[in-house]
């Protein structure tokens, strides 16, 4: 089968680069490009007899001698049929379980105000994989990388397994007695109690808390989300008079202006889906949107921008208000009461915005009108948020939805609470799934304040910094063991347990229900009963709780009215924006991609997923702009001292192209003191947070100095480098419109091998680089599906990470503001695979369905295949990464995929277990396989639908049609290996003089 790619065009190779060394072409980088493997793999010394390289004094001859002896021993030992093991059937088999068949349950995962309706794949009662709920009208079967990885937290061996009182393990009966006694004492004395929890997104939890307050009138409740951005909360209260949940509706967008907003980072599957739909062009004449990004750090959204302009966060407010002023001049009406007189007309000072670009931006917004939307990053200062609210109100934007939300306590409220505790105002403190001992900026003050509270209880899963300060520890269920419900746009969502409790734990809500009862209030037996009763009271006719539970949701029409913008709030914000000038260096603190606010820090899957921009794993170095690094003489990996006010951190630095001059960025959620994975990874950045909620995440007057010394970074961006070949292609919309087939295709080489025959199927994949945002959801989905091991920071630093799919991030152009393209790279399943013909034992060969298959039990670990792979996607098990693990960690493994031992090679299998399963099911039902029936884990995980898998033999399949797209190319097609993966060139839509505009 031969798929002709579009015609050959002129050969022009855009100069893409991934690391600074590559771009500057240092001799070290050139050497590194030649060395396939990093130190530790390459022999370090020469044999003194033959002058041949040996490693660590252990020669190849010794090795074979030992292997021979071991094989002989193994052969005699293996000849034994004793102990074939046992089969233990169910004593009473649950009707829904057939051993070997996966069951799917609808549930939901909450992270801050974000709610992710999910489907949980369970095998024999164990949840093993999480994907989005396809019934939900918003997320449509997609979810976030952190939601997918959270299944690992269920099996975290660090979880607290029974209640504990001052270090002593005790039963629930006694623990609850202690708990109730403390609450009762406080109630009787009329003293205040403080309950701190995460965001309340559940109506039932809200009702429960209201009941608790009735039973315990002196209760004070704070809901905190330390990484969600206090400034956004403050700004919403100022602009709308109430807390608001802001959801982009990108499907309706023509022009998007992001003020440091990172809505494409994977956290918001709905936004990604809409983005993908807008970007997957069939031809140059389809409607396209345009994304403008003004930001200080380089965010994932910034890398996907059509036009990106580096602007320091402290100036964002001024820039946005100046834009509003320009739009007023162009005839857009200001909301009543709004006053922009504090803002000077024209481009604000202190920004290097070119006049031409500025006028293009104004014109774009004006033309797009209701189809324009302005989104502001949660960490940006409050005035920038208020400016965004004003702009959206002026434009009457349809592409953003505002929902009233439950209030969140800011750092100021927490500080007041700490003061209250220090003054002895509280008789009891209950911490529920929060860790203020770690997240509160003044940890010592917090510790001293907490010590003044007579009774301190902690409800949570893994004992953390806060647990260390509490007397009574109550172990909580994981969400996969719990009941809950949530309100989302378009549906009310149910969370249901998918496994019984693994340990002697209870749901936090159940603990509080018990407290209500003990305090003399009325409460049902369990939170499940409480929630079910509430649902059954409000269910519309023709629906049932059971059906809602099956679907995981009940579709609803949104009743909430969007809050009105208050023009009177503008004047004060403009004054703050006008006065906000950069002072020295400016530090932006944002939630870690892997760790968020630290709650995921104990999740090794996430710790090892490379950060989409810096490609860092297992660390949070401070990112420095290219200009500042030059000025301060900082190089990659240099240890630096970072000081804000009187707090100083010592940490490594990385240089970040594209970051605005004078801006530093640092991820929160690292530097934890507890947890076997989290402990000691990176540094804790929370002490650098400000106590003014309006600008808590943006600190000015930061000092940065070299501390001397260097740290080896566990960074994957220089691994598997591709020596400057034309691997990634990016077109502007203009180029694409002018030359629909304008990018070149190399001549196909003559092959010495006969063409492979594919009698029935030929599996193939298409990856649309225009839709891929680089969010790395595919990496996590693959890790979960294929039992991909975690290797740890030292191994990653040696280039031994095991991910079957990686996202290569390429820069192009100027260092100060490069264009960025993300390219998912996985086994290309070449028809003429170079790995296959070098394998001495035929462990890797071709299937009649086009799969480059890997038989682990045949592999002897020569690594020839990895050396010969032009795409560098083969992964070798240098050490025993998984086999030594015991329960509960092993329970997360997918039983359909082999757990690979040390010494074998592995790589992407196109999820052959899923292909085989669908094939067998279709055969059993005497039908052919439907297009789209087989999904690989990466495809199912990709929220922007950039990845499409299917049968290339079927001309009607989606994948066959996409292969014929005029943007199609194959990576390294000139070497004639005939990969089964086709890429579609990236598209950008910058505003060009005389060019086509968006919308």
């Amino acid at each position: 089968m031969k798929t002709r790619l579009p015609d050959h065009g002129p050969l022009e190779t855009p100069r893409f680069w991934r690391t600074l060394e590559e771009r500057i072409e240092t001799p070290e980088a050139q050497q590194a490009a030649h060395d396939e493997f990093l130190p530790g793999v390459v022999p370090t010394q020469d044999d003194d007899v033959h002058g041949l390289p040996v490693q660590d004094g252990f020669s190849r001859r010794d090795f074979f001698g030992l292997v021979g002896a071991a094989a002989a021993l193994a052969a005699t030992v293996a000849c034994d049929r004793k102990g074939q093991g046992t089969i233990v059937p169910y004593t009473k088999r649950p009707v829904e379980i057939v051993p070997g068949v996966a069951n799917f349950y609808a549930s939901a995962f909450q992270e801050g105000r974000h709610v992710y309706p999910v489907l949980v794949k369970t095998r024999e009662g164990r949840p093993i994989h999480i994907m989005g709920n396809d019934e939900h009208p918003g997320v449509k079967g997609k979810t976030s990388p952190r939601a997918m990885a959270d299944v690992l937290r269920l099996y975290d061996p660090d979880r607290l397994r029974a209640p504990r009182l001052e270090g002593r393990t005790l039963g629930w009966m006694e623990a609850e007695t202690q708990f109730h006694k403390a609450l009762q004492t406080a109630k009787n004395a009329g003293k205040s109690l403080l309950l701190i929890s995460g965001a309340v997104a559940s109506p039932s939890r809200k009702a429960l808390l209201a009941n608790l307050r009735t039973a315990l009138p002196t209760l004070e409740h704070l809901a905190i989300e330390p990484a969600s951005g206090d400034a956004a909360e403050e700004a919403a209260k100022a602009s709308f008079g109430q807390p608001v949940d802001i959801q982009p509706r990108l499907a309706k967008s023509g022009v998007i202006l992001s003020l440091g907003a990172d809505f494409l980072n994977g956290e918001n599957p709905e936004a990604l889906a809409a983005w993908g739909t807008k970007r997957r062009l069939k031809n140059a004449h389809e409607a396209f949107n345009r994304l403008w990004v003004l930001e200080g750090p380089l965010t994932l959204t910034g890398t996907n921008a059509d036009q990106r302009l580096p602007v320091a966060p402290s100036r964002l407010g001024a820039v946005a208000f100046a834009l509003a002023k320009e739009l007023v001049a162009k005839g857009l009406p200001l909301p009543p009461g709004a006053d922009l007189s504090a803002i000077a007309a024209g481009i604000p000072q202190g920004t290097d915005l070119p006049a031409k670009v500025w006028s293009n931006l104004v014109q774009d917004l004006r033309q797009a009108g209701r189809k324009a939307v302005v989104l502001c990053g949660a960490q940006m200062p409050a005035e920038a948020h208020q400016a965004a609210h004003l702009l959206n109100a002026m434009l009457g934007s349809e592409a953003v939805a505002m929902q009233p939300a439950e209030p969140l306590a800011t750092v100021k409220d927490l500080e007041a609470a700490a003061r209250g505790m220090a003054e002895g105002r509280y008789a009891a403190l209950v911490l529920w799934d929060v860790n203020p001992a770690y997240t509160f900026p003044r940890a010592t003050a917090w510790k001293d304040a907490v010590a003044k509270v007579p009774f301190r209880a902690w409800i949570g899963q893994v004992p953390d910094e806060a647990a260390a300060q509490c007397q009574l520890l109550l172990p909580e269920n994981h969400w996969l063991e719990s009941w809950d419900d949530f309100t989302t746009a378009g549906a009310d969502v149910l969370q249901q347990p998918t496994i019984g409790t693994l340990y002697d734990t209870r749901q936090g809500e159940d603990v509080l229900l018990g407290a209500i009862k003990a305090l003399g209030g009325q409460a049902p037996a369990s939170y499940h009963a409480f929630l079910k009763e509430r649902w059954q009271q409000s269910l519309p006719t023709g629906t049932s709780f059971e059906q809602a539970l099956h679907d995981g949701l009940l579709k609803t029409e949104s009743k909430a009215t969007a809050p009105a913008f208050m023009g009177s709030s503008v004047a004060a914000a403009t004054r703050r924006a006008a006065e906000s000038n950069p002072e020295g260096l400016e530090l932006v603190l944002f939630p870690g991609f892997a760790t968020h606010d630290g709650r995921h820090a104990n999740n090794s899957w996430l710790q090892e997923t490379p950060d989409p921009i810096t490609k860092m794993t297992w660390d949070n170095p401070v990112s420095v702009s290219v200009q500042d690094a030059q000025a301060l003489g900082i190089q990659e990996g240099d240890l630096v001292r970072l000081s804000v006010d009187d707090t100083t951190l010592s940490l490594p630095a990385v240089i970040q192209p594209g970051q605005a001059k004078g801006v530093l960025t640092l991820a929160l959620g690292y530097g934890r003191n507890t947890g076997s994975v989290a402990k000691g990874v990176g540094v804790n950045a929370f002490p650098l947070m400000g106590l003014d909620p309006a600008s808590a995440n943006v600190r000015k007057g930061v000092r940065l100095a070299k501390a001397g010394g260097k740290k080896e970074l566990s960074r994957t961006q220089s691994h598997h480098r591709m020596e400057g070949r034309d691997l990634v292609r990016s077109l502007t919309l203009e180029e694409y419109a002018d030359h629909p087939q304008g990018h070149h295709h190399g001549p196909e080489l003559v092959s010495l091998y006969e063409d492979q025959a594919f009698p029935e199927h030929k599996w193939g994949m298409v990856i649309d680089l225009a839709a891929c945002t680089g969010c790395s959801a595919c990496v996590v989905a693959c890790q979960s599906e294929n039992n991909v091991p975690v290797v740890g920071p030292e191994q990653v630093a040696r280039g031994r990470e095991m991910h079957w799919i990686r996202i290569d991030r390429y820069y192009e152009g100027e260092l100060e503001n490069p264009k960025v393209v993300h390219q998912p790279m996985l086994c290309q399943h070449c028809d003429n695979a170079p790995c296959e013909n070098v394998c001495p034992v035929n462990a890797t060969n071709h299937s009649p369905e086009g799969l480059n298959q890997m038989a682990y039990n045949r592999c002897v670990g020569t690594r020839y295949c990895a050396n010969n792979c032009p795409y560098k996607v083969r992964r070798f098990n240098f050490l025993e990464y998984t086999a030594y693990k015991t329960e509960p960690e092993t329970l997360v493994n997918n039983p359909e995929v082999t757990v690979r031992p040390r010494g074998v090679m592995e790589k992407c299998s196109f999820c052959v277990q899923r292909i085989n399963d669908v094939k067998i099911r279709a055969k059993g039902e005497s039908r052919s396989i439907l297009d789209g029936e087989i999904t690989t884990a990466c495809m199912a995980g990709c929220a922007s639908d950039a990845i499409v898998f299917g049968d290339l033999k079927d001309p009607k399949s989606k994948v066959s049609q996409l292969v014929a797209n005029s943007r199609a190319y194959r990576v390294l097609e000139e070497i004639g290996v005939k990969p089964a993966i086709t890429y579609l060139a990236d598209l950008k839509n910058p505003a060009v003089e005389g060019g086509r505009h968006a919308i």
Partner: protein
Amino acid sequence: MHRFDRAFRFVLPAAAVAILATISSVGWFTQPDRFAKGYAPEQPIPFSHELHAGTLRMKCQYCHSGVDRSRHAGIPSVDLCMGCHKVTRTDRPAIQKLTRIANSGEPLPWQRVHTLPDHVFFDHRPHVNVGIVCQSCHGEVQTMKVLTREMGTRMGNCLGCHRDPHASLPPGSKITKGAEYCAACHR
């Protein structure tokens, strides 16, 4: 003594014996299914396939109900046995033991007779669904008082049938070959 006497009398016979011993021991060690055949471990309940599948003519799938839906045929759960044995043969010690287990809910570990290495993912469904009878691989189970292994699960046994399956397939089947590529079973 002739100078070759020593060689003819001692060295050559000893060498011949050594060579023969080597050949026969290697041959014996490497014979197909050497340890596979005849394996019949003692089970916690002396269940007789001869009685249930032979005399009573119960269908295999009555108990091994996962076979057409799942990769695994499955061992029946204890409550399935109790469907009949609540009233049948309740005087037998084995049935009394079974009843005890069913009531207490404790696990019943059966000894595995047919086993596969970890890196093999055999799937019962495509085999059973095209009409291959259980006996093709598991032997004449309906005649076994104690379940005994008749055939080893070597790859050679799999491939023998996959290359020429007509003997195992029902008459009239159009299938001429089974999958022979690695990823069909190894992944």
